[in-house]
């Protein structure tokens, strides 16, 4: 199976973790910055962005919402932003992100695409060819 694109696992943790590169911009600008997001299937949102990146991109809060965490409910800030990644056939799209301690990519972002978690070779693949094959 040939995949369109894959990314090396992040090595800043042991064991290494799957990650994906996404280009993000404040929703009212067009300066996209490449950010690597940890794949987190325990996160049911779109994207979580760490405070350092929020500051660097000057993202503006537009609200606050509660989220459910392992230790209870808490309010987090909400940011509108634009994302894109031609490698996964993702055109410029308006999304929301919440503030999280580290940048994570959640299930809403991952849905409707096929991914391969290759732990042996420590690579995370986008597998659109497989989708065409099983269609």
């Amino acid at each position, binding site marked *: 199976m040939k995949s369109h694109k894959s990314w090396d696992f992040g090595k800043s943790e042991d064991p290494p973790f799957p990650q994906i590169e996404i280009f993000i911009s404040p929703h009212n600008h067009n300066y996209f910055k490449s950010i690597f997001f940890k794949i987190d299937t325990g*996160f049911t949102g779109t994207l979580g962005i760490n405070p350092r990146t929020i500051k660097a991109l000057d993202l503006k809060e*537009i*609200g*606050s*919402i509660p*989220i459910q*965490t392992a230790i209870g409910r*808490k309010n987090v800030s909400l940011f509108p932003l634009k994302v894109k990644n031609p490698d996964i056939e993702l055109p410029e799209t308006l999304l929301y992100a919440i503030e999280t301690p580290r940048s994570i990519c959640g299930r809403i972002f991952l849905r409707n695409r096929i991914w391969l978690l290759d732990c042996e070779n420590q690579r995370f693949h986008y597998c659109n060819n497989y989708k065409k094959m099983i269609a």
Partner: protein
Amino acid sequence: MASQIFQFGQKAFSFQEFLQLTQYKEKYGRNVIAELSRKQILEVISSMSDKRARLYKLRWPAIKQLIIEGKEDKDAIINGLNLSQYEHQYIVIKNFEVIDHDIDLLNLVQRVFKENIDPDVVITNVGIPKQMIIYEIT
């Protein structure tokens, strides 16, 4: 914070109307009004009919900021606005009025920000959202 005060919304109100609504004793009511004015949540305006009379009005930019900060004041504001028809939903509020709502946060954000951002809007929730985001690690 006196959550009932948010029922006034954009409407200017007198001190007597405030006491009537909250049932506070006069002295305590004056302290509350002074505190809200100090925090710039209230502005003082003159009555059109009687220049000597003082009226108070909630300042939407300050209220919006309290909702964004998401602390306990947020719940008082949302409770005070009587938004029970939007229970378990995400809402977009501008000047105390709900201008859009949805149980799906992504749909709501994509509708609201399709055009240029309106700096006066704020997105939040009423009650526990039906589709609440789950994040396993804190």
